[in-house]
């Protein structure tokens, strides 16, 4: 009875955020436009790359084994995961260092509810929705154009599941980095680090090869598992199911659970050392 109803609280966050977004209409519209521009520019860039490759080669262009429409699925997956991270977590992680610096975290700590939940989800960013729709449209456009692809029903289940897992991995890295601001008083730069490393997740993992690529691939698959974030769901949908995919797909589950556990540990430790700020 006395456990808070997390779903009801989450719904309240979403509702209040929407009311707030609607108050600042112009701001909301600008957010939407810039978000869409970012996604479309990404898409346009790779369309150009494939055009160039078609022009150069024998008519079968691919990037590290990804044909154009397969790669569009990859991009759609990037946009999709990105819109989830932005929609749920990004504004909150950004806010965390501010809350630490001003002592606003005090109030979060007073509430009879999980502090990490409260801090991670209190601002829902509704301007991420158009981006999400764009990603879905891109999927609908690209999938029928992939040669020789017939979708198995299980792929419809696995894809959303891996999208959620990918989102959770990115969230874990994000909140883990942001939580260090509690430890260090304020450290915005460590949170900015998230943008640098997650850049690596936006490309097919096959490109990380050779004496430079292989170590990178190892680090970003097993230590900070951001390479599985986009690669696993995208491959699940765009590539035929094969024996070589399964180990990585299995590992993605482990990586998600592991990332969440580690980031939670960091968050809890950070809270213990919270110093608050002068009143």
């Amino acid at each position: 009875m006395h456990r808070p109803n997390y779903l009801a609280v989450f719904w309240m966050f979403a509702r209040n955020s929407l009311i707030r977004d609607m108050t600042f209409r112009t701001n909301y519209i600008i957010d939407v436009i810039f978000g869409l521009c970012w996604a479309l520019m990404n898409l346009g860039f790779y369309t150009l790359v494939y055009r160039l490759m078609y022009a150069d080669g024998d008519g079968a262009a691919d990037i590290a084994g990804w044909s154009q429409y397969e790669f569009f699925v990859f991009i759609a997956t990037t946009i999709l995961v990105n819109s989830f991270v932005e929609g749920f977590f990004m504004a909150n992680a950004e806010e965390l260092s501010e809350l630490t610096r001003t002592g606003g975290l005090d109030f979060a700590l007073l509430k009879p509810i999980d502090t990490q939940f409260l801090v991670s989800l209190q601002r829902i960013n509704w301007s991420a929705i158009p981006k999400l729709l764009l990603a879905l449209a891109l999927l609908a456009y690209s999938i029928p154009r992939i040669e020789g692809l017939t979708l198995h029903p299980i792929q419809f289940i696995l894809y959303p599941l891996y999208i959620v897992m990918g989102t959770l991995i990115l969230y874990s890295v994000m909140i883990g980095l942001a939580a260090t601001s509690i430890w260090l008083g304020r450290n915005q730069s460590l949170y900015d680090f998230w943008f640098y490393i997650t850049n690596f997740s936006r490309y097919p993992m096959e490109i990380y090869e050779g004496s430079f690529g292989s170590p990178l691939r190892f680090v970003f698959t097993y230590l900070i598992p951001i390479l599985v974030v986009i690669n696993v769901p995208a491959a699940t949908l765009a590539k035929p199911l094969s024996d070589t995919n399964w180990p990585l797909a299995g590992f993605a589950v482990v990586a998600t659970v592991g990332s969440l556990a580690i980031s939670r540990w960091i968050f809890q430790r950070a809270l213990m050392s919270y110093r608050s700020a002068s009143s």
Partner: protein
Amino acid sequence: MSVIEIRGLRKSYRVYQKKEGLLASFSGLFRREYREVNAVKGIDLSVEKGEFVAFLGPNGAGKTTTLKLLSGVITPTSGEAKVLGYVPWERDNDYRRRFALVMGQKNQLWWDLPAQESFQLHQKIYRIDPAAFKQTKDELVDLLGVAKLLGQPVRELSLGERMKMELIAALLHSPEVLFLDEPTIGLDVVAQHNIQKFLKHYQQVRGITILLTSHYMKDIAALCKRVVIIAGGEIVHDGSLEGVIDRFSDYKILTVDFADDRMPSDLARFGEIREIAPPRAKIEVERSQIANVLTNVLANYSILDVSVEDPPLEEVIASLFALTEKQQNESKESNIAAAAANVAAAGKN
């Protein structure tokens, strides 16, 4: 059993001592000097159910730190505390559902939204029964007279109005223990008075335990029978407000209205003269001498009116703060002197 039990509570911080200037900032990158700040230096206190206790002390005395420790916002360096039987910094949800902290200088309501949206969020977070929620909210809104402001974004409220909303938000879940950190700071006299009146009424009706910090003596005089004075992280007085005067001031103020404008010139023999505005004179008289002086004055001069009063509370407390600070500095210096002497002695050996 006491609602609040504190034993030997200590909190110290390590603070980076930044030197002035750019060059010093660079050297600070490699070698840092830290200073240990003892915000709370071993406090013992117990508070019974239904008490309304004031924490009084100069800035930086450790009042807010103590409230934050009791709220579980920060963890102590050492010592124990129990509130309602819980150790605050374990942050048990059951504990967090039973107390509230209001800070006059911070705000927990959603800045861009009307306060009522934040109230609803609280209902969900604290899982308050909808009927009870409505009843409590209506009652509080009515008592504080803010019904018309519920739909206005918090950022458009005045400071006093916002403070009322903060109080409502904090009281919606009917806490048994309430920590108030300078709830009237920056408010005008009317708003201060309204909040005082509300707190007094609410505390009497609900019988909850309240710990209040304030700089306004009026707040404290109006609300609290028990005053705990903290200075330099230690408790220097725990008792009634009147007790402060009895204990820390050894004089009274004698005001004499003479029958004509010709004031006697030898008033200084009775005590220090505070003010002379013929035909009135105010003299500080030692407490033990007050009866003698009064007889003497009445016998020797023609007097229209006379009154004996305690010195103003603010004054007593200000001098008390100054005294404590001086003592603490002296003890610090004597420690340093002792240490220096030890070093010198060691050098000789």
